[in-house]
Structures are given as C-alpha cells and as structure tokens.
C-alpha cells in the first residue's frame, strides 16, 4: 500500500511554484491598496450605495485572482419598489 502510494504521486513543487507566482504578482501590485480588483470592488460598492440603501447581508462579493485574468463578482439583491418610476 505504501509502495503504491509512493509511486503514484506526482510532483507537488511545480504547483507550489505556480501558486506563489500568481499570488506574489498580485500582492506586489497591492502595496498601498492599489490592487485593481480591490479598487474596483470598493468603487462599485460606493456607486451602488449612492442609488440605493445596501443591506450588507444581501451583498456577496467574490474574487478569484488568476495568472492572466482575475474575476470580480458582485452579487446584490435589489429590492423591487413598484412605487418608484424609472427616470
């Protein structure tokens, strides 16, 4: 059993290297909170707050930092107010 596991393993160091490269690239850019994804997150939430009362529990923010592409997903429940007409 031990032998089988010993030989079936793939190397883990390449995974470590790749994870660190992605992470550090983002962290070096983030010095002084200048990370673009973080900036966008804060500005989007501020913009939304201007137009509606945000219930913090109804806002979910997800980020995924990738080597080439990062994603930012802001999921907000907007209550339907029939009394309000579109401008």
């Amino acid at each position, binding site marked *: 059993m*031990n032998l089988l596991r010993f030989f079936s393993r793939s190397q*883990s160091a390449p995974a470590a290297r790749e*994870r660190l490269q*992605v992470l550090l690239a983002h962290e070096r850019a983030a010095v002084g909170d200048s990370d673009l994804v973080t900036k966008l*997150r804060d500005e989007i939430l501020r913009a939304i707050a201007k137009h509606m009362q945000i219930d913090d529990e109804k806002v979910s923010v997800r980020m995924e930092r990738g080597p080439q592409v990062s994603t930012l997903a802001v999921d907000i429940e907007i209550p339907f107010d029939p009394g309000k007409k579109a401008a």
Partner: protein
Amino acid sequence: MGKVIVVTSGKGGVGKTTSSAALGAALASNGEKVVVVDFDVGLRNLDLVMGAERRVVYDLVNVIQGEAKLTQALIRDKRLETLYLLPASQTRDKDNLTADGVEWVIGALKQTFDWVICDSPAGIERGATLAMRHADVAIVVTNPEVSSVRDSDRIIGLLDSKTLKAENGERMEKHLLLTRYDPVRAERGDMLKVEDVLEILSIPLLGIVPESMDVLRASNVGSPVTLADERSAPAIAYFDAARRLKGEMLPIAIPGEKRGFFGKFFGRKAA
C-alpha cells in the same frame, strides 16, 4: 455555543498553521461546522496552506473596522462545505486588531460554528495574546527541540495568566501537540523523546505528528494534510488528535514503535 481553540507555540515554524488547517479539516470532515481564523496580521499564510489565497476578498481587520460583514469575509473551503476560513489582513498593521473587535468577532463566530480555531502568530506580542484571549482550549504546538520547548513553556505561562479564563480564576485546558517528530533521531538519542518533552512541560499529550514529506507536499498544493492524503502518517495523527479534542480516549502511538515497510529496512541503524 461553539468551542474556541487557540493553536499557539511562541516559536515560529513549528507547525501552528499546518496544524490549524489539518485539525480544522479533520473536525469538519464529520460535518461539524469549523472556522479557522488567521491572527497573523501582516504575514498571513493560512489562506495559502488551505489553498484559498486567490479568493480572499475581505479579512479580519476589515470586519473589525466595520468595512465588511463577518459573513462576507468568511471563505468557504472548496472541498469541505462545513469548513471556513477567516483570513488575516496582509497589508494592514497589526495595531488594527483591537481587543474589543476580536472579542466581538469570536463571540459572533461561536454562535454559528461548532469549532473556532484561532491560528496564533509566533511571538508573545499583541497578535498572539489576542489569539489566545478568548480560548476555551489551548493547543501548544512543540517540536522536540530545546528552543521550541522553552518557548512553549513561556506560552503555557501566558495561557495561565493573560487569558479571560485565567483572569476569571478558571483553569485553561491545555494540550501538547508534538510535531515534526523524527523517531529515528529520537531512537538514536539525537532528539528529545516524547517522555522528555512531556515531563518538562507537564501538560497532557494530544498527539504526535511525525516529520513527513506529506506536510510539505500538502502545503505545496494548498491543501490541509488531512485532506491531501488522509492515509498519510501525519494525517492519521491529526485525525486522532481531532477525535481526542472531542473527548474520545484514544491510545497515542509513538511513531517508530511500529515500523512500516521502509522503516524496517532503512530506519534502523545497525547496532
């Protein structure tokens, strides 16, 4: 009400973060709700060890400063749905960790989680004392090596004086987790033996985690060692430790007393 555990050691590099992640995953694997909180503000690493480093949105300091809700800062593990991580801040100063803020966060987490595991930073400064402050149980991570044992002794002193439990005149439950134990060296007499460390620190033993490549391998791929390879020696040690934390009485096997295939051939030095 959940139980609050602090994983502490004084000395750095002995395996606090590895143990926090491994025990957290072991406890959560039975469906109990577990959150692991990183208290190492400025030098966070729990996110990396748990493989969530790309998904950190908000952190402990954001929650304490009122910039984010607790629920928004919690990151759910991709493998275990009852395992959560509350990351530390990487960019903020550790002075942002206020005593009141930490008290509120721990109190709120206790309401929803069965286990709140606080991964302490090394040292005996603010971060370390705040991490242990609200604990019900302390896990002292120690390597069988003189400086680690000395620092653990210092930490045990702090656990008995600077925690809420101690200040209220209650007894803090403390457990020793011996990590990076190398049975071959211990047998040769080049490493402190289990009974040596137990005699010096005189707190009950929670488990012995053998020195293993599996720990490095697990951190490389961003997985608690108990999830990366649940049949590996360190994983088995952590699973057993988790069961003891829940109150089970399990005998503790000292690594090396029962040798595996490789151990039999390469481990023992000819007399």
